[in-house]
């Protein structure tokens, strides 16, 4: 082994040791959080990928920042200490999911313009709120993720949302399948397609909030769509694609977290580079196999 490789191996072993160290509880929390969130990410990411609404999810995730800004503003300036940034993010996510969903259903040719506007306005509102808030605030921790911020409360929050997403997805699996494959036909069977489309977007928005802590608002979309994109090379049925996406997503988050810890890198970008590289390699591999 070269010295470089030895260094790398030592760094990884240190990371694993760090896991067992009670002082490094945050790393353990981050890994558990990544694993738990992967369940929602694999399921919802698959729906988002096959319905091709990745840009809608992008708009939702960016407008989440408006909610985070508002929550911090209310906490510091108005004294509403219970108004947690994650609560603000959740509220903003659900509201923007409904607005963006209705726009995408009714705006027709103006759809991309309106959604692009909501995307930017949500983001801008968040920054203005923070401008008006006294004290130091680390913007980049929300934009690109920061595992040091993860607390036990976040884990409980992720667990609850996971249960919700999993439960609703199992209950309405056939409904969501149909709304993604052919919603016009579904409407002809007498089912309210608007309701299930909006429900799917609300679940998407809640899922996006799940991983804002680890990968941040800007990068979250990649983690939502890359695992299903890789899974789609192999999966013949929807549930297979979901299962494979869950496994891939938890692999990317945990491997990314360990690498970022070992080499003192930002967690979010490390996870995204890892999954992005894996996806590109799979693309090239499949192109090559086909020729």
């Amino acid at each position, binding site marked *: 082994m070269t010295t470089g490789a030895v260094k790398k191996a030592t760094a990884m072993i240190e990371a694993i040791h760090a896991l067992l160290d009670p002082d490094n509880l945050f790393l353990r929390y981050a890994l558990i959080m990544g694993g738990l969130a992967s369940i929602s990410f694999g399921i919802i990411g698959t729906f988002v990928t*096959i319905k*091709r609404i990745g840009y809608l999810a992008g708009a939702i995730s960016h407008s989440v920042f408006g909610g985070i800004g508002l929550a911090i503003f209310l906490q510091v300036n108005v004294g509403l200490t219970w108004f947690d940034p994650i609560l603000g993010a959740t509220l903003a996510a659900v509201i923007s999911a409904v607005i963006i969903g209705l726009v995408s259903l009714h705006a027709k040719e103006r759809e991309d313009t309106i959604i692009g506007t909501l995307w930017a306005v949500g983001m801008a509102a968040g920054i203005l709120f923070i401008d008006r808030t006294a004290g130091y605030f680390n913007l980049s921790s929300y934009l690109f993720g920061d595992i040091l911020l993860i607390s036990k409360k976040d884990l409980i929050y992720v667990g609850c949302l996971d249960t919700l997403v999993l439960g609703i997805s199992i*209950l*309405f*699996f*056939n*409904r969501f*399948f*149909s709304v*993604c*494959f*052919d919603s*016009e*036909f*579904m*409407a*002809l*069977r*007498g*089912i309210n397609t608007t309701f299930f489309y909006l429900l799917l977007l609300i679940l998407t928005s809640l899922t996006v909030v799940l991983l804002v802590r680890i990968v941040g608002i800007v990068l979250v979309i990649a983690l939502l769509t890359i695992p299903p994109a890789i899974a*789609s090379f192999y*999966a*013949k*049925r*929807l549930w*297979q*694609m979901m299962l494979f996406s869950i496994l891939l997503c938890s692999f990317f988050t945990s491997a990314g977290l360990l690498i970022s810890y070992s080499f003192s890198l930002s967690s979010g970008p490390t996870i995204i580079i890892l999954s992005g590289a894996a996806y590109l390699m799979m693309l090239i591999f499949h192109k090559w196999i086909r020729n």
Partner: protein
Amino acid sequence: METGHDIILENISFSYKQNQILEDVTLFIHKGEFASIVGPNGGGKTTLLKLILGLLKPDKGKVTIFGKPPEQARQKIGYMPQYAHLDMDFPATVMDVVLMGRLTRTALWFSKKDRAEALAAIDEVGMSGFTSTGFNELSGGQKQRILIARALCSRPAILLLDEPTANVDHETEVNLFSILQALNSKMTILVVSHDLGFVSKYVKSVICVNRKVVIHPTTLMNGMLIKDIYHGDLKMVRHDHRCSEEGHCHD
């Protein structure tokens, strides 16, 4: 309520973005009809189907299906859309796709009966053995047949098909229309088609749509009429054209 008519369109007008697509259309489709909807692109063929399905609302006029508004009669209509609007990379088996035809407002999951009906429908279009094949692995003609099976498995009284023979070869076209001809003994069928010469061998009537709608029994089809429908701008590939006994002349 007129008896014997499955579909009644009365004085229907429909426009989209200031373009009048259909103008004062009145059409009666009797039970057991097998009609082909023909006309130039953008002439309103798909619009006509969507008005019957209630997916589009007319600006003026009334649509009645089995004496009810389309929204209430939809459950009895089987619909096969143009498959171009479906995502062909979608991870689904043939069975997954056909089962969509068994969706109901109340049941969340599919029952044994739903699966049996789906299997019967797949069998009816001659695709048994393909149930667990990926939908995206099928050829164009096979996909069309599966979408017909999806329309069939709700046991409809009316079957509406939008260009079921687009992008398929002649053999597949013959095959599909033989299936439809057999199904016609059980249900009313309207099928949008480009290929008037070909379909006139199978269907009972031809519905010509170009802003106005005219219905002709196939026995009266001749060259003059076809020219009239297409306003003389017709270019048709007559690889399988049959003329009436008298023949037809071109000036």
